[in-house]
């Protein structure tokens, strides 16, 4: 599904973010990507959504070589490899439901389809009762669930979660992880980027560890090592 082949990323001023990273993630896997701040986790996510280009190596999603991604292809990649962030990235002047609808609107979906899909996805993430509230009126966990709902509207093959629990307390964090596991059980490949030791150890799933831009460990049923 996701294939990194000797991937390196060097930013201007010779800052090496990733150094010869290679791994393969099968379709439907749930993988945690761990490492300290500055280890290259976010760069790896940016490479996967076409936000950055690899300096060396090759990145494949299915049969799609995204190292040769054109600007016009990037939007299609982002509908297949959806991403959620620590800061939710919701529009504050729109309700939770409108935030989800917005994702469908900007991609040209017909209004009838939008009105049908958006409430369904809100139900999946457990927000049907609060979907008409504004982001400022709900908790961090609910904001993150809205972000997940927005990411799910295109039924992406991959869900990249970049520190999704970073701003949440342990109860809300657990709810988000449970939701990610639920999404994974539907067949979506999930790549969880985190430095939360407790979550990683409880998951008992595959763990890839980065340190100073290098892949230092890849365990099938791993633990947080660093």
């Amino acid at each position, binding site marked *: 599904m996701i294939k990194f082949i000797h991937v390196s990323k060097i930013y201007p001023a010779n800052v090496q973010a990733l150094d010869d990273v290679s791994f393969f993630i099968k379709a439907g896997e749930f993988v945690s990507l761990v490492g300290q701040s500055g280890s290259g986790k976010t760069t790896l996510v940016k490479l996967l959504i076409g936000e950055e280009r690899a300096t060396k190596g090759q990145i494949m999603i299915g049969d799609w070589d995204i190292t040769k991604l054109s600007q*016009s292809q990037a*939007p299609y990649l*982002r509908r297949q490899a959806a991403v959620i962030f620590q800061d939710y990235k919701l529009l504050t002047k729109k309700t939770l439901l409108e935030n989800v609808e917005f994702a469908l609107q900007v991609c040209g979906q017909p209004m009838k389809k939008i009105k049908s899909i958006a409430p369904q996805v809100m139900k999946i993430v457990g927000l049907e009762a609060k979907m008409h509230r504004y982001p400022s009126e709900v908790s961090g966990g609910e904001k993150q669930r809205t972000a997940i709902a927005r990411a799910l509207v295109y039924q992406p093959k991959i869900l990249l979660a970049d520190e999704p629990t970073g701003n949440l307390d342990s109860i809300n964090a657990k709810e988000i992880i449970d939701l990610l596991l639920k999404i994974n059980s539907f067949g979506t490949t999930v790549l969880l980027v985190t430095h939360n030791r407790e979550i990683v150890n409880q998951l008992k799933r595959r763990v890839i560890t980065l340190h100073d831009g290098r892949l230092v460990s890849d365990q099938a049923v791993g633990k947080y090592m660093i």
Partner: protein
Amino acid sequence: MFISLARIIKFSLQDIGRNIWLSLVTIVILVLTLFSVNMLLAVRAISSTAVSTIKQKIDMSIYLKPDAPAERISFLQAKIAEIPYVGEVRFVSKEEALANFTKNYQRDAKISEALRELGGVNPLSPSLVVKPKNLNDFNALIQSLQQTKDPIIEAGDFDNHKEIIDKIDAITKKVSDAGLIVSLLFVVVTLLVIYNTARVAIYTHRNEIAIMRLVGASNWFIRGPFLLSSLIYTLIGMVLLVSIFYVFLNLLQPYLETFFASYNFNIINYFSSNFVLIFGAEFVVAALVNLLAAWWAVGRYTKV
């Protein structure tokens, strides 16, 4: 395709409405800038007409000897008429010259007294009055007349005219050069203002743009509303500009009619007969500048 286009229009109109002050400032700046450019055009048209008016009043006289025979005068008149730059050659007899002179200075007591003292003797010479075919050919005509030799020619007053025409041409050139510099300055100011306005607008939408990219909106869909807003600003700006400028021209015209009393110059007609050329070109240029500014600004601030 149709849905995307409809949403681009919707988002663009929403954007204009939700940022109404920013939109108004953008339009007002556009109107003021283009108004200044049109003012320059009006000044240019007025100065050009003024110069033509002055030039048309200038003619050149070739003074002839008082005893020059009629057939020699006719021959010289025909010879001068053959010069390509000559529009008209008219013979003014001694008597006609005196009549004109008396008429022109009838209120001047000293000149009237001096004429009386001459006791009926006509001191003026007959002349050939030459007008150019084209007002821009003055200098070439003067040169040709200076080269025309004939024993019956007493004198010509070309040098004085040459000086005046050269001065007028120099002033016209300076006005034209200054107008060009001011126009270029306005163009640069317009570019900077529009570019900055677009930048501010995009800065206020940076979160929305980031989210649009995040959820997979195409680059065209992100850029579309900004480009359309730019076009709408230009269109509204042009409509306002034309309305305000024509009000201004209507206020100006009575003053110009007084100034160009004997000439049929109408500044409103000038702009109306060149409407498509002037306002059409301004719309196209302003729209292009706006679109390019929006394109660059979105590209720079969103990295799409």
